[in-house]
């Protein structure tokens, strides 16, 4: 294999399939990225497509510094400056990302309400304790009421959050008190989820908001409506419906596909159908049908965030992350790929045609030419799930001889919800974040990093994730992960307790060994970044590390980001007080003023700022430097002798 091919991924299974695709004459995203370079003007936010007088391009001068005269001329037909254009583009990315996570949250809320009313057969309230928790968050009366009565009220309250017109989202109250004050002072506390997305779209349309600080204020408000709104609702209600994740053993990589079983890959984001597929795959008649067709069973495997959802709750194996969706089909062993929404490549039907795979769309919101559509109906979910499985089973005998399943698969432990971390650190009767905070204060753990986000065909698959995570844990930084980033670490063997001794610094390794956890914790899918917000809040509230998230020695990163959803996530991390570094490319560098606002001025406003560094190890070191800065501010940057106070010293204290 040529060196240029090897650079496409650091994962052996993926490289094997890249080679096979080449032999099968199949075009992949990796190949298209090599041929088609990104538009250099759009890449930095300098292209405006908001009206038909354009598109207007306002690039920086090539090879020299911008003069005042250049700057005066850099305007669209309507007069929009580079700042306005870049800010509008950036805010629209946030709005789109917020819309995606929040529409997921809405779908979960609808199913939740239907389940509470007994109108969604097959679904049930699995985590009553979490229902009580959210009922308290939403101010729903508990008393001696039945689970169903409480759930109906919780469901109605959740639905109302999307259409709320005034006031504040209910989950904002979970944030540290100081953070809430900052949001109110800056006027960015979201009123309603849909309202903030609509207002962001309005203000970025032609001829409306033309002041980039003001535009970004709405961007921040929309992003908070995602992290502390739509995403948090999705996470919390999914936990009630399907169970709050607890540690579970799973496996990852293309090697989880099986030669002799019907392989069904579930790809996308919402766990509504996949939960039912997991149940339907256990049905005796379905298993019997599979055996009649010559298979020895049914093998479900996940892809992207749907995979994370069903892994966290059932231990169902993961076939791979975003850049492996095409490669799974190239194995020739996938009898059906079932997709719902988000991160699904339009190339899949073409690739499926090269093999025998049936590609099945299930959401009315996301159809694809060349795919079969079996619409998921939550009121007849089991029937929908069985229909999907029957299509896959019927397709099994059509599997050809051009099959090659890579051997690679790796163990991982997933299921580290906030609730489970709290439990693991103290047990049922003294669950607490105290051991984590104590070990941060005593320096065994230097800090905590959230490394999240996508894969991107413009950089080596998984390379930046792994380089960054290894650098962080080597330097005693505990890493929390979600989404495709978590899957990358799992493939590299970083999500098992044994990884602590092998890759982590001595301090972090000793804590991981004592608690029995890996140095890199899998916290779920991309909507589950809300779990990281809650974990950070618990650290603040436990005490000893300041009184706001921005005081904590923590940092965030999206080293291989590609989706608008990642920008929304990064923005709500920053607006919640977490310094956040992105890799690959940065979409505002066409405006120095806007970039300065995001990278510098935000620190004064929100206590945290964005940063950009495409080199993953350098980015990790930026995060570590930020963590060290926070440790110094907290006064925990050096060991201190314990002082035993005598009576005289105590009297002095009391006098103060």
């Amino acid at each position, binding site marked *: 294999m040529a060196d240029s091919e090897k650079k496409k991924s650091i994962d052996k299974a993926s490289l094997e399939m890249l080679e096979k695709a080449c032999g099968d004459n199949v075009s992949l995203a990796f190949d298209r990225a090599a041929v088609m370079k990104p538009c250099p003007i759009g890449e930095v936010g300098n292209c405006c497509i908001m009206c038909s007088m354009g598109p207007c391009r306002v690039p920086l001068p090539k090879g020299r510094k911008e003069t005042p005269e250049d700057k005066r001329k850099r305007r669209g037909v309507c007069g929009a400056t580079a700042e306005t254009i870049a800010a509008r583009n950036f805010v629209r990315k946030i709005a789109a990302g917020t819309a995606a996570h929040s529409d997921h949250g809405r779908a979960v809320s609808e199913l939740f309400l239907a389940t509470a009313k007994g109108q969604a057969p097959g679904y049930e309230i699995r985590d009553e304790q979490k229902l009580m928790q959210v009922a308290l*968050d939403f101010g729903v009366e508990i008393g001696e009421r039945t689970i169903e009565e409480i759930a109906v009220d919780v469901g109605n309250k959740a639905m109302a959050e999307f259409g709320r017109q005034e006031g504040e989202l209910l989950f904002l109250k979970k944030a540290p008190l100081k953070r809430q004050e900052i949001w109110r002072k800056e006027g960015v506390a979201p009123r309603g989820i849909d309202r903030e997305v609509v207002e962001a779209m309005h203000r970025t349309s032609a001829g409306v908001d033309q002041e980039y600080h003001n535009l970004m204020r709405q961007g921040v408000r929309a992003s908070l409506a995602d992290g502390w709104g739509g995403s948090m609702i999705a996470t919390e209600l999914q936990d009630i419906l399907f169970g709050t994740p607890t540690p579970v053993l799973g496996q990852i990589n293309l090697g989880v596909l099986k030669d002799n079983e019907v392989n069904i890959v579930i790809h996308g984001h919402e766990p509504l159908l996949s939960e039912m597929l997991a149940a339907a795959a256990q049905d005796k008649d379905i298993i019997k049908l599979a055996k009649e067709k010559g298979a020895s069973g049914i093998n479900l495997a996940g892809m992207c965030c749907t995979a994370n959802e069903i892994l966290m709750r059932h231990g169902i194996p993961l076939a791979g992350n975003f850049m492996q969706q095409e490669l799974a089909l190239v194995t020739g062993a996938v009898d059906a790929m079932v997709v719902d929404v988000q991160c699904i490549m339009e190339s899949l039907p073409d690739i499926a045609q090269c093999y025998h795979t049936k590609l099945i769309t299930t959401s009315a919101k996301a159809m694809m030419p060349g795919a079969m559509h079996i619409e998921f109906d939550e009121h007849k979910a089991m029937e929908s799930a069985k229909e999907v499985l029957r299509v896959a089973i019927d397709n099994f005998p059509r599997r050809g001889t051009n099959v090659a399943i890579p051997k690679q698969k790796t163990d991982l432990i997933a299921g580290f919800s906030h609730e489970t971390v709290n439990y693991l650190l103290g047990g049922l009767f003294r669950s607490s974040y105290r051991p984590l905070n104590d070990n941060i204060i005593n320096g065994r753990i230097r800090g905590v990093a959230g490394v999240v986000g996508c894969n991107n065909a413009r950089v080596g698959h998984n390379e930046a994730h792994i380089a960054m995570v290894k650098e962080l844990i080597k330097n005693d930084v505990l890493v929390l992960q979600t989404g495709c980033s978590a899957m990358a670490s799992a493939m590299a063997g970083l999500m098992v307790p044994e990884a602590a001794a092998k890759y982590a610094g001595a301090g972090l390794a000793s804590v991981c060994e004592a608690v029995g956890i890996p140095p890199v914790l899998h916290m779920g899918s991309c909507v589950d970044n809300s779990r990281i917000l809650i974990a950070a809040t618990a650290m603040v509230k436990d005490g000893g590390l300041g009184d706001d998230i921005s005081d904590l020695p923590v940092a965030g990163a999206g080293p291989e980001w590609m989706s608008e959803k990642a920008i929304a996530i990064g923005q709500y991390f920053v607006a919640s007080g977490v310094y956040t570094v992105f890799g690959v490319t940065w979409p505002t560098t066409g405006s120095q003023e806007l970039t300065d606002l995001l990278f510098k001025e935000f620190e004064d406003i929100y206590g945290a700022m964005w940063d950009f560094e495409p080199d993953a190890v350098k980015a990790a070191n930026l995060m570590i430097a930020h963590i060290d800065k926070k440790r110094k501010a907290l006064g925990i940057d050096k060991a201190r002798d314990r002082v035993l106070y005598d009576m005289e010293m105590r009297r002095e204290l009391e006098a103060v």
Partner: protein
Amino acid sequence: MEYKNEKKEAPGRGKVEVLGATYEEGKPCGEETGRWRQKLRNRREQLQYLAEGERYWYGKDWFGSEKRRNPA
């Protein structure tokens, strides 16, 4: 559990027989393993756990780092 003896090197005494590891291997298996939330058996225990375990948000007498602050 079955006890296993192992031969190990002892200083000045050559190889000696000692009791081997008595712990179960740490690999969880099956869906039920690790599902600690089922330990909360009824509503009273669930609410009590929220007030104590999740005291950061639901405890009435515990505010951690924010105890000196007025509610926002």
